[in-house]
């Protein structure tokens, strides 16, 4: 019983930081370079990164790819549907999978699932990226302000975070996404929904990153004050900020990378619940929601589900690798 339970104690003393510091080759390199070296060696993380790049390219060139495939995502192909027999299922086997339609077609209207999945990456990534950006912007700003000024400012912002964390988020997001009219803020249609979703998702996720930044800021501030006391007089706040930000980049980067997949899931969930981007625009969550009624045709739910899974997994793999590279102790 003793032997197999053993935790490798070597890690306690073989401090990789010390090891690396001493490595002749990379002496004097920045933490960023060291992290990059480590990251390059992490094949799984690189694999995730490659998938992410491919996904982003796919999203950017979605229209082009779809043109090549030749089946616009919203185009009906009801000739592939059993309308006469009344089942409305794809006439081909396995949900109508063929060379022409590798992922099969949707029941009822026969839309090409592959094109829709590809187009869905656009919405998914766009919303996830910008929502993350928004969360990071709000979270970082308020986190720094709270951590730096302390006192009642900190107390106020911390309470604000508490309130946000006490909200039943999803319920709230659904409600909000459901009541906003179709034309608002000078936008309409898809662009309004996308902006709205970015805002809702981004706005509700900031307290998490806010907490991290606040904690980091406080600990850095403590350290800085010690230094400042030693050196000549107090430092000016702006200097502190310029020193603060570089130190915050690593945790923010890691957290942002890991927030993106969360936001992809969030968007998918909202679309699944019917408050995402409006029909007929293809979204992964929306496709899953459509597939619910056709659970007897698993191909319909499989592809969008897989798309979500692969995307989220890729971001998680890369995020994990990035964290390990930037903070080796977490390995």
């Amino acid at each position: 019983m003793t032997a197999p339970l053993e935790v490798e104690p070597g890690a306690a003393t073989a401090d990789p930081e010390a090891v690396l510091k001493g490595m002749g080759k990379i002496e004097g390199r920045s933490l960023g370079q060291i992290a990059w070296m480590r990251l390059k060696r992490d094949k799984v993380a690189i694999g995730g990164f490659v998938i992410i790049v491919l996904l982003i390219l796919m999203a950017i060139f979605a229209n082009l790819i779809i043109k090549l495939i030749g089946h616009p995502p919203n185009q009906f192909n009801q000739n592939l549907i059993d309308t006469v027999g009344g089942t409305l299922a794809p006439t081909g086997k396995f949900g109508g999978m063929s060379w022409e339609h590798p992922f099969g077609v949707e029941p009822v209207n026969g839309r090409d699932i592959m094109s829709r999945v590809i187009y869905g990456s656009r919405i998914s990534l766009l919303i996830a990226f910008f929502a993350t950006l928004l969360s990071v912007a709000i979270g970082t700003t308020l986190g720094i302000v709270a951590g730096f000024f302390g006192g009642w400012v900190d107390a106020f912002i911390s309470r604000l975070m508490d309130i946000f964390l006490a909200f039943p988020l999803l319920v709230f997001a659904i409600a909000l996404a459901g009541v906003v009219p179709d034309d608002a803020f000078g936008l309409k249609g898809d662009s309004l929904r996308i902006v709205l979703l970015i805002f809702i998702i981004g706005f509700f996720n900031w307290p998490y990153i806010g907490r991290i930044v606040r904690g980091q800021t406080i600990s850095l501030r403590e350290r800085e004050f010690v230094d400042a006391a030693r050196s000549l007089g107090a430092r000016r706040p702006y200097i502190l900020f310029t020193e603060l930000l570089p130190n915050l980049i690593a945790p923010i980067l890691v957290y942002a990378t890991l927030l993106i997949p969360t936001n992809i899931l969030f968007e998918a969930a909202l679309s699944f619940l019917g408050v995402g981007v409006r029909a007929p625009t293809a979204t992964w969550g929306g496709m899953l929601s459509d597939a619910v009624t056709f659970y007897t045709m698993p191909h319909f739910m499989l592809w969008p589900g897989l798309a979500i899974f692969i995307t989220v997994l890729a971001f998680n793999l890369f995020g994990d690798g990035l964290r390990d590279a930037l903070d080796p102790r977490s390995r």
Partner: protein
Amino acid sequence: MTNDNAFLSVRDLRVHFPTDDGLVKSVDGLSFDLERGKTLGIVGESGSGKSVTSLSIMGLHKGGSARISGEVLLDGQELVSSSSEEVRLLRGKRMAMIFQDPLSAMHPYYTVGHQIIEAYRVHNNVSKAVAKKHAIEMLDRVGIPQPDKRVDAYPHQFSGGMRQRAMIAMALSCDPDLLIADEPTTALDVTVQAQILDLIRDLQSEFNSAVIIITHDLGVVAELADHIQVMYAGRAIEYGTAEDIFDRPQHPYTWGLLGSMPRIDRERTERLIPIKGTPPSLINVPKGCAFNPRCNYAHLNGGASETERPELLDSGAGHMVACHLSPQERQKAWETDIKPKL
């Protein structure tokens, strides 16, 4: 330097860790002896392998990824080849250890008493009540006031010095023959440091145990150690009595350590011989003398330091040194460059 009276005998100890970045040779061929009632000081910078050495002796690297070779003989019993279970039974009972930061070294969720009782009961089949009485006794013995009350306090409720006393009480609870103190005073105030060192010395004479003190601070070993071993990059580079090391240090690295030692009896001046550069990588240890990139005297012997690793050789009366410099060169450098500035 074999010694038949040695209670602890380490022979060609090597501790290597395979990592993603390469093989880390934390300890790379270390040998020394220690008799009962004697104190050995192991000195070196962080990463020199001194802590790894102590943990290896304790068997705390067993079962992990570490590759350990060589021999560790504790009262004649070879530990490197012993099973984890055999070594475990010795840990705490025949050999015990005190750690650097007593706050992190004690479990924050358990009372000090609980942790001493636990240590005692591992090796002594007694009731909790008896063990508790023993724990109170031990706390009393290390000079903790009101031990019957403090026994139920948590580590965070102790002051730094008191915590280290409690730590020592825990280590000594089973009357070990070998006590390893790893930087026992580093985390403490200067005034408290002296008290703790006194305590270790008193207890050592009382228990007649062998003691290894591991430190980067020569000042600590100056007070306690009978012998001192200076380590650099996983190897011993100088070994001798305390007088040897303090009065007739032979290795340029030892000079550097002496020069960076703060002394109460001396005005605070600039460092005499700042050790330039950083400790070497334990993966790519510099060829030849591992210290040569940082050594001010490496040029004196025509490049031998850069190509050939110096052996640890007896330079007379058990004072051993690993350096390519001739005894005369070392003598001269010590007398003219270093000693006057100390």
